[in-house]
């Protein structure tokens, strides 16, 4: 048991050396690490509680997605039945209780209507379900009900798009190394280290940035508009900065051009008033549509609508053929810039609210690192002294093992790209305490075996063998607790569990295998007849 071949020793030392090597970049300044080749940039990331920064948990409203889908369906049904040679007249459209229902005016056309609506639905999920069910009720009413599988599918794809849009927006802000991850079915975690004030970030993520251009309905009666009523084919939208009086305006339902057809948006300044505004550039088809509509509607106003609110309603003085337009609306420079970013990165398919926010200032983070480091050093020194006083030479071996263990944990965390949090530092300190437990178990066992009358070599062999089994079992149970923390814990608990789990794995190796190499080397060199333990 105490004889190790050269190869075995090399096999034990190599992973430790690699581990220590990988820990080194964590201690170097940023600029030095940047010059290293990529495989050597194994650094421990500091969590937000240490580096300072913001953590936001955003939740999408699934009801929103469902509502939006139903509205789209209504739009599709209208166009589909109006299309072609045989138009089917419908009425009484309602979308109450999450269902879309309408009456077919001529009962003999019900079957034809169903025939034409069916292709609008799509397969959802693996069970052969459709995303909408189409039924005929009372022989003339068609009811379209969204299925759960259809809603789930829609939420899933909306979340994928949303995650991408949010990533683009945050990248545009120029922040450093943000983390954006979907969590569960309808949440997104955003973590931005080093961000002092998340106000701008939240404002940016808070807007959907759905941009539409629609013609203003000039035929609408102003007093009816003020009451929220619009002529057929038009709708009333809020217009908070309406210079003409009431904060409402009637616009045609039909969209001239939408934000999906733009290629660029920049914050600019108005040449006359020097007010900040946003200049957008359309793609080919968007530019053509805009040119066509503006040519046909010279001297009429159009509305620029953002997230359901009218920003401004300028007059079309001449056809706009250049494929670009300017959005003004009493912006601040910051607001105009945010809108430009939001428009460039596309609209969010769903609204988000912040359900959890944690912000740590860089000062507190630095204090925490400092306190954690001091505590760790004092803990190491105190434990090391205690071990030396209790076990002499063997205690020193254990101390070397602990020191290496600390570095190897850092190295492994660097390789895995794991994040060190404040509770993670506590995990470190605890690992220092428990790592020596393995050595305590072994050494106490050796003491016992000596008392029983075994000779030095036998006692050491027996001590390591018997204690190893106990150590293994004790660590398995400990790892169960750690694994559960990792699986169920959030934020700080996870950070703690990562260090704990890595520590359990590495400490068994350093405290048992590595110290055995040290002890066996010493025993073979000096062949002691008695040991002081």
């Amino acid at each position: 048991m105490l004889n190790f071949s050269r190869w075995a020793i090399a096999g034990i030392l190599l992973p430790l050396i690699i581990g220590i090597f990988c820990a080194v970049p964590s201690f170097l300044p940023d600029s030095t690490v940047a010059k290293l080749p990529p495989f050597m940039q194994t650094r421990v990331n500091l969590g937000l509680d240490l580096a300072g920064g913001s953590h936001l948990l955003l939740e999408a409203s699934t009801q929103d997605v469902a509502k939006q889908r139903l509205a789209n369906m209504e739009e599709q049904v209208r166009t589909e039945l109006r299309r072609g040679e045989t138009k089917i007249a419908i009425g009484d459209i309602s979308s109450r209780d999450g269902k879309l229902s309408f009456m077919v005016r001529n009962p003999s056309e019900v079957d034809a209507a169903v025939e034409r609506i069916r292709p609008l639905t799509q397969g959802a999920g693996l069970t052969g379900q459709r995303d909408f069910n189409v039924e005929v009720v009372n022989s003339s009413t068609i009811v379209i009900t969204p299925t759960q599988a259809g809603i789930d599918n829609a939420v899933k794809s909306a979340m994928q798009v949303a995650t991408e849009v949010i990533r683009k927006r945050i990248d545009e802000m120029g922040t450093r190394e943000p983390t954006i991850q979907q969590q569960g079915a309808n949440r997104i975690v955003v973590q931005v280290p080093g961000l002092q004030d998340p106000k701008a970030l939240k404002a940016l993520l808070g807007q959907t940035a759905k941009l539409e251009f629609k013609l203003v309905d000039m035929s609408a009666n102003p007093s009816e508009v003020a009451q929220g009523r619009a002529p057929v084919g038009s709708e009333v939208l809020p217009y908070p900065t309406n210079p003409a009086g009431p904060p409402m305006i009637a616009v045609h339902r039909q969209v001239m051009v939408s934000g999906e057809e733009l290629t660029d948006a920049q914050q600019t300044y108005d040449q006359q008033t020097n007010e900040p505004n946003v200049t957008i550039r359309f793609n080919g088809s968007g530019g053509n549509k805009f040119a066509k509509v503006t040519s046909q509607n010279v001297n009429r106003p159009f509305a620029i609508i953002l997230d359901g609110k009218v920003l401004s309603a300028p007059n079309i003085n001449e056809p706009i053929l250049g494929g670009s337009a300017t959005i003004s609306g009493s912006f601040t420079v910051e607001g105009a810039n945010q809108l430009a970013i939001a428009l460039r990165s596309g609209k969010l398919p769903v609204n988000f609210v912040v359900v959890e926010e944690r912000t740590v200032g860089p000062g507190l983070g630095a204090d925490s690192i400092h306190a954690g480091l001091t505590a760790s050093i004092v803990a190491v020194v105190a434990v090391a002294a205690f071990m030396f006083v209790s076990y002499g030479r063997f205690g020193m071996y254990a101390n070397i093992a602990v020191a290496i263990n600390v570095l190897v944990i850092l190295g492994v965390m660097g390789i895995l790209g794991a994040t060190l949090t404040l509770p993670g530092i506590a995990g470190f300190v605890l690992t220092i305490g428990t790592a020596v437990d393995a050595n305590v178990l072994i050494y106490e066992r050796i003491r016992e075996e000596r008392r029983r009358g075994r000779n030095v070599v036998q006692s050491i062999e027996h001590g390591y063998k018997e204690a190893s089994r106990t150590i293994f079992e004790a660590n398995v149970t400990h790892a169960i607790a750690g694994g559960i923390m990792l699986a169920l814990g959030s934020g700080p608990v996870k950070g703690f569990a990562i260090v704990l789990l890595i520590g359990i794995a590495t400490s068994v190796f350093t405290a048992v295998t590595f110290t055995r190499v040290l002890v066996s080397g010493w025993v073979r060199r000096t062949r002691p007849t008695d040991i002081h333990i």
Partner: protein
Amino acid sequence: MKLLKLVPDNTNIGFVKLRHWAFGLTLLLTVLAVGATFHKGLNLGVDFVGGLMIEAKFPQAVQTDKVRDTIAGLRVGESSLQQFGDPKTVQIRLPLPEQGGAGAANAVVEKTRKAMEAQFPGVTFSRYDTVSGKVSGELIQNGVLAVVLAIVGIAIFSWFRYEWQFGVSTFVAIVHDVLMTLGFFAITQLEFDLNIIAAVLTIVGYSINDKMVIDDRIRENMRKYRKMDMKSLIDLSVNETLPRTVMTSMTILLALGALLLLGGHVLRGFTAAMMLGIIVGTYSSVYVSSSLLITLGLSPQTAEKKEKKSGIAAQAERMGPRDGAQP
């Protein structure tokens, strides 16, 4: 050099004899802890009840009453203030605004910040958390689930690995440790947040570790000394492992002590919980879980039956107890 031995050689304390006293005391303390938890309640942090937590750092020492008055003038709900050691740092807790969702919480933070900056120039918010009621509900659910799963998972592990008596005694002892920790938080009214869940899970892990070592020794001795009666066998096992138990608890307490004194206020509750847990866990390993094996009717026969199945009985050594084997 004379080496330090915290537990003298050949210590032989009759732990099993003391078990009725120990059980009585344990039961009393546990009832007190549970009573305190229900009576006083836990000081749950924003992680678990939702709300706003702001930690403000002032350039000079500040009186909490003045801060309280400033915030009371804002009409943002009832605030609760706390100071930890440092007179320049104040932690402010506020309820989440009932309406307006996340934007409203933000507005409260901004409102508070403005008022505080006007009243105490140079003040900074070193951190702030806002947690909505929905998220806090999930966090508490996950936290409780994690602790329950850990205890049950580990009890099942030791049941399969050894006999059912070991599983039950470990389970009882660990539930005791967790209840004592809760009682500690109820009595001290230290804030109970997400970090404390991590601390509780660590206590569970450590306590199990401790019991495993003793259980393992009991099993080993059951194989070695087949004729020895259970009471002396358990006493022997606990005494044999006592030096290790004390030594390990001491090293961990040393390490945690450093963290408690020097690790900063953010980790203070966490460390305090852990230190208490180590002490309670060690106590329950020595006095509760091993003696409970006798009450549960563990006998050499039950062990042998299981061993025959696994076929390791052949490895049994026969040696006298260690007192007879002095060199």
